[in-house]
């Protein structure tokens, strides 16, 4: 019943969405602008219909309605309620449904917020979002239909993928990722709308889409960090980033979105890079779809490759269509969009932004080509090859390290131009930070050149960004006699976009520090211990207390309790890595345990155990500064959130 209702809703939405797409150009061409209300109505109706379908799926999941194919595939009576709910995005069809719902939500929000804006930009943007919605609606009534009837109705199901029901972060990472990924359709819709409406020859559309991109960027940043955290907490290898195709897929649009957020400033200030900024919007959107295609089609092996089926061809066709359409549109209008570039001087922030865009693009293309290369090699040479972590560390990380340096250079240089002597004066203070952090890394035993350079650059950029606050705060202190705390608040609220950006910079630098430190000083040891036996890993000692077992409804849990010993051999805590055996799978799911402090984590994973409990093989890893990565991710999001406040509104609010 719920299945039928949902299928009906989705079928109707295909029709509604298609009508909405068609009516927009007719309304504008014939001058019947009142017809645009039909298009906006289609956006709202689509949101309503997809909400009904998504709600029906949640009801079917929670009530264990195994007559619905998706529930029969991922549901199980023994799965806890929370994991039953979040299994909505735990497999292919459900995740496409959730995607469609988030897209419909964004489209409704765009129309709601911007429909009173004069001109044809918003109608065409809404049309573009409807067209993208049409693609997902077709997937949902076609190859990814989650509501197919099942007969005979099974009494119980296998439950979600065990890896995906083992940690609470599965309730956090996917929604954030969708909010980020799908949100990037909005700047694309504005870019397309700008071309259709002829507004691409102005900067207004880019200013309008900036906040949508910034918000999506913040969601995607948070999602990437949450994904790293999940990988760290669940997969048991003690790492957080493996350059797996799906990680790369999430990273690619993040890179182009970051490039956009910088190039759009140059566009606003100097009325240049218009075509480039527009192309970055298009590239970001295409990369989100490409990423979904790569990971969901099963063409590249990945944790996220749910199934192999015909859905890959749909994605491929859609990507080809988007690329072809934008290529024709952009090429046909490039003369109108393009503006002559002018720079005040080479020593300017604009130049740094050009370099920033260059390196971000270079990292993106390197990661993209590396990810796709196995397909190329197989097609050309007929040989299967792998492109994994060592390749990306060697070929992509240097450009990323260069970006860290530029993060210190950009904020220090003024817009427009300055003399080289002044530039030198502005760029010198960061050197103190570079020398300091580089020396600390060297003394602490870092020997790899790239690691030392990374630390030095982080030091350089931290000083470069913090100095901007300091200069602005000192100026307010001198001018208004404000104390420094008030001055900081004043600086932030007077120009949230700029100083929020610096907060995001600092967040990225904290993340970088965590990554560089854990890559440099991570130490691990594996040993088979009998109860009472100790294992010491770089100054941290644990002692095996016991090995135990516990039955839970959906799984059996085997755990090893390790006591963490202080300097005087007293017990200062325990750490209990476990292995979870789900009823539905032969493969146990490792469940490491982590003891965190500011200095880093003590990470333990249970590798093997004797049935009788006589011994346990554990891997203990000392992971310096890893919690800084999660914390830095929070700072990045905070910075983006500050940047969402625009100048005018903030000033009006603070004027009371």
């Amino acid at each position, binding site marked *: 019943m719920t299945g039928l209702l949902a299928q009906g809703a989705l079928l109707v939405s295909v029709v509604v969405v298609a009508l909405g797409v068609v009516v927009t150009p007719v309304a504008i061409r014939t001058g019947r602008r009142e017809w645009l209300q039909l298009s906006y109505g289609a956006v709202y109706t689509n949101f309503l219909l997809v909400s009904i379908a998504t709600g029906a799926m949640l009801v079917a999941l929670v009530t264990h309605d195994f007559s619905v194919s998706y529930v029969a595939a991922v549901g199980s009576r023994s799965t806890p309620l929370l994991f039953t709910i979040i299994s909505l995005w735990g497999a292919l069809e459900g995740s496409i449904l959730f995607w469609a719902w988030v897209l419909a939500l964004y489209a409704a929000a765009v129309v709601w917020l911007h429909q009173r804006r004069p001109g044809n930009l918003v109608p065409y943007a809404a049309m573009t979002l409807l067209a993208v919605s049409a693609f997902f609606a077709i997937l949902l009534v076609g190859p990814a239909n989650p509501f197919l009837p099942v007969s005979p109705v099974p009494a119980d199901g296998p439950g979600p993928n065990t890896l995906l029901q083992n940690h609470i972060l599965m309730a956090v990472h996917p929604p954030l990722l969708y909010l980020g990924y799908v949100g990037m359709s909005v700047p694309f819709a504005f870019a397309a709308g700008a071309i259709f409406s002829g507004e691409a020859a102005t900067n207004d559309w880019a200013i309008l889409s900036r906040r949508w991109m910034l918000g999506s960027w913040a969601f995607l940043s948070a999602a990437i960090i949450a994904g790293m955290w999940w990988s760290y907490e669940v997969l*048991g*290898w*003690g*790492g957080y980033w*493996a350059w*797996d*195709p799906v990680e790369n897929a999430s990273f690619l649009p993040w890179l182009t979105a970051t490039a956009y957020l910088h190039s759009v400033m140059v566009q606003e200030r100097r009325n*240049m890079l218009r075509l480039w900024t527009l192309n970055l919007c298009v590239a970001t959107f295409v990369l989100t779809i490409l990423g979904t295609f790569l990971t969901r089609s099963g063409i590249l*092996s*990945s944790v996220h490759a749910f199934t192999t089926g015909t859905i890959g061809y749909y994605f491929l066709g859609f990507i080809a269509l988007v690329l072809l359409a934008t290529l024709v549109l952009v090429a046909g209008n490039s003369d109108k969009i393009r503006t002559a*570039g*002018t*720079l*005040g*001087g*080479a*020593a300017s922030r604009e*130049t740094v932004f*050009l*370099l920033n865009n*260059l*390196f971000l*693009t*270079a990292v993106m*293309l*390197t990661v993209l*080509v590396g990810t796709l*290369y196995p397909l*190329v*090699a197989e097609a*050309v*040479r007929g*040989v*299967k*090859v*792998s*492109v*994994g*972590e*060592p*390749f990306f560390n060697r*070929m992509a990380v240097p*450009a990323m390290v260069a970006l860290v340096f530029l993060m210190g250079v950009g904020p220090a240089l003024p817009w*427009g*131009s*300055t*003399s*080289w*002597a002044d530039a030198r004066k502005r760029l010198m203070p960061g050197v103190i930070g570079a020398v300091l952090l580089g020396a600390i890394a060297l003394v602490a*035993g*870092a*020997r*790899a050149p*790239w*690691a030392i350079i990374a630390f030095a650059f982080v030091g350089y950029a931290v000083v470069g960004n913090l100095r901007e606050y300091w200069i602005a705060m000192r100026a307010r202190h001198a001018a208004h006699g404000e104390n420094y705390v008030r001055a900081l608040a004043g600086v932030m609220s007077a120009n949230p976009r700029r100083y929020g950006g610096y907060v995001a910079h600092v967040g990225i630098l904290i993340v970088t520090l965590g990554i560089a430190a854990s*890559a440099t*000083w991570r130490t691990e040891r594996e040993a088979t211990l009998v109860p009472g036996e100790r294992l010491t890993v770089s100054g941290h000692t644990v002692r095996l207390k016991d090995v135990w077992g516990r039955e839970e409804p959906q799984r059996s849990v085997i755990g090893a309790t390790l006591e963490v010993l202080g300097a005087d051999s007293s017990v200062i805590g325990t750490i209990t890595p476990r292995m979870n055996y789900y009823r539905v799978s032969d493969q146990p799911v*490792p469940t490491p345990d982590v003891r965190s402090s500011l200095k880093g984590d003590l990470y333990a*994973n249970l*590798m093997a155990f004797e049935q009788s409990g006589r011994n346990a093989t554990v891997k203990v890893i000392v992971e310096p500064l890893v919690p800084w990565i999660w914390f830095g991710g929070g700072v990045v999001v905070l910075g983006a959130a500050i940047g969402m406040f625009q100048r005018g509104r903030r000033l009006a609010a603070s004027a009371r």
Partner: protein
Amino acid sequence: MSRRTIATLAALGAALCLAGPARAQDRAAQGTAPAATSAPASAPTAAGTSNSAANSAANSAADSALDERTAAVARTLRCPVCQGESIQASPSELAQQMRTLVKDRLRAGESPDQVRAYFVSKYGEWILLEPSMTGLNKLLYAFPVLLVIGGLAFVAMLVRRWTGTAASPPPSPPAP
């Protein structure tokens, strides 16, 4: 006295090599850090007569030097039964066996490249997480380098052109 110093130095040298970070380990595994491998050879002769503490330190240092070399090679080999993980990262049984095999071969005196070649002969090129720099793969490695060099040249050209056509004179003209 001098023997003692040698033993201590050997232990210290080995320990220092261990302290090296991930990429330094890579290099050690590629055979550019002979200090790590020479430590066990010099330590026993020196310590047999004088300092047994340094001996055991050097021995365990040599052991963990081998562990480090093993880890460096293991990081470059793909776990055949996992999703793109290296055999160093994977907790699976097969990965564990492969790590032992890597260690045995390194201990027997094979170079990291020889060990890798052995796995390639068994599993094919696919087993390498970093493709070898041969044939078509060279393009894969050349691409990012050319991209950055070409990009830098392009940006330099743009800046030169755009500052040249600037209509308004900059407040202070840049020195050459």
